[in-house]
């Protein structure tokens, strides 16, 4: 059968609210900031919070969520590694009667109270548009992609290509796995192959900062755009090195997540998607 004979009885003592948070990874400063924001806000509100880390692995994610369900959390905040893969875990939570809020990515199946997200596709479009503004049509750009197959890679790439395929000239597209070191070497090699590049769009700030080091070494001055708005990137933008970053606002997302928890507990109606604005940060 599809039902576990051991149904969790959630008639446990009320009073202290317990939140479970599953983050996709903590190997990326953006998600670290997101976690920090959620934990800080939740604790400020007097909630207990338990965090599990999926380490970018869907199976680990499901296990972690099951472990949270086991601990009778009142609300689950899930930042999925992948929207298809997380579904069965969401369904398990549904079966246990625990409301689920997803962050950054949605779940394909199962009932979700709401999705709190920045619009990655829109962010990709913003980046392309910014390059258009700066350099005009037909500018030669390089795209540095994230981990192949990751949803952020797909969505940011999709948004970027929506505009850039028509109006820009994408001369190189290579993955650097959201990693600063790889961003550096990929950029070095790309510059070697094509020295007429005018702009670089990286799927996250880490890779953009790596690419920036490569570009600085050649003494060139290119338009470099990152994504996420992590602290390092913002500092770099202020210093006039990184041209721009499409900043997500993890603090805002965290705040939004915790207040959503409150609404869920109060039984309030929620919109299907809560969009946290992206912000183009330039000097």
């Amino acid at each position, binding site marked *: 059968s599809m039902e576990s004979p051991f149904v*969790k009885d959630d008639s446990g003592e009320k009073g202290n609210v317990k939140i479970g948070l599953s983050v996709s990874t903590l190997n990326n400063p953006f998600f670290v900031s997101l976690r920090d924001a959620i934990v800080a806000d939740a604790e400020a509100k007097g909630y207990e919070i338990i965090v599990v880390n999926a380490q970018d692995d869907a199976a680990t994610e499901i296990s972690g969520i099951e472990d949270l369900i*086991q601990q009778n959390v009142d609300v689950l905040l899930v930042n999925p590694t992948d929207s298809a893969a997380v579904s069965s875990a969401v369904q398990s939570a549904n079966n246990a009667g625990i409301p689920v809020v997803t962050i950054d990515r949605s779940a*394909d*199946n199962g009932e979700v109270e709401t999705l709190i997200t920045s619009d990655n596709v829109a962010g990709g479009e913003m980046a392309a548009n910014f390059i258009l503004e700066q350099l005009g049509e037909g500018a030669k750009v390089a795209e540095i992609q994230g981990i192949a197959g990751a949803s952020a890679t*797909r969505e940011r790439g999709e948004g970027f290509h929506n505009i850039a395929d028509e109006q820009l000239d994408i001369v190189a597209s290579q993955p650097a796995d959201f990693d600063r070191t790889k961003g550096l070497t990929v950029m070095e090699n790309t510059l070697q192959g094509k020295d007429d590049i005018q702009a670089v769009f990286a799927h996250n700030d880490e890779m953009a900062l790596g690419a920036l080091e490569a570009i600085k070494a050649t003494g060139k001055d290119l338009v470099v755009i990152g994504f996420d708005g992590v602290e390092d990137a913002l500092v770099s933008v202020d210093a006039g090195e990184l041209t721009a970053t499409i900043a997500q606002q993890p603090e805002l997302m965290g705040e939004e997540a915790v207040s959503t928890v409150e609404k869920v507990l109060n039984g309030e109606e929620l919109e299907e998607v809560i969009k946290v604005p992206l912000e183009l940060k330039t000097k």
Partner: protein
Amino acid sequence: MKTSKLSTIWNKFIPLLALVGLIVVVTILNPSFMDPANIMNLLRQISINGLIAFGMTFVILTGGIDLSVGSILALTSALSAGMMVAGIDPILAIVIGTLLGAVFGALNGVLIAKGKLAPFIVTLATMTIFRGLTLVYTGGKPITGLGDSYAFQLFGKGYFLGIPVPAVTMILAFIVLWFMLHKMAFGRKTYALGGNEKAALISGIKVDRVKVMIYSISGMMAGLAGMILTSRLNSAQPTAGQAYEMDAIAAVVIGGTSLAGGKGRIAGTFIGVLIIGILNNAMNLLGISSFYQQVVKGVVILIAVLLDRKRS
């Protein structure tokens, strides 16, 4: 000579004692660990590592290693998901996917046996190749829309007599493999190969064939694990299974099997799988920060193998 027999029996129980100790400690720290629901959780969670580790036991017993299991898992998962999307019966797709795992494993085996290459380097290369092929096949995107065949859903998420189906699958695989290893000529050959390959060859054992078989088993178990994961995730993830080889190897070694080959038991591997699974589960239950979790896990592996070492 007389004491040694006693101590041999004692030794077999060291991993088991470690397991019991771990369970006691965890239960004291958080009694909800012993919840039937959590036990079922746990069993389901370990089933994937369990299957892979059982296959890996054969490989390690021959003194080899299989780093490609995670990639085989991802590739078979993608291929069978592709079949399901193309409309092939999900159960048939599961069977084919599992067999494809055996085929990929056999490829490892042939390269190792006929090419006379080190298993480490062959499976390191095929790990990269299978992962690359998975990405090429999926275009880097998850494959979804696998339909809603009840049987297929059951395979990863269902229950049989109250026990999660993946756990049942794992236990069945354990019984079959245990039997092969300890009651069949094939198992004897596996040990002989690991103990002294030259002597095994000269004794008329078809060493190459045994190797191909062994890597096929490992691949097949990875494929089977891939099928379970596909059902659990209701999709195929191109990045699935990364670094799974490490957990499997750790389980085998914690269970008392020597990396040098020739010595060890699959029952020990089961205990190793449980130890690692409980550790992961309990650290979540106890709310240990994920950064510290890594440190603890590494330390526990070290302690486990040190204890194991002491017994000889």
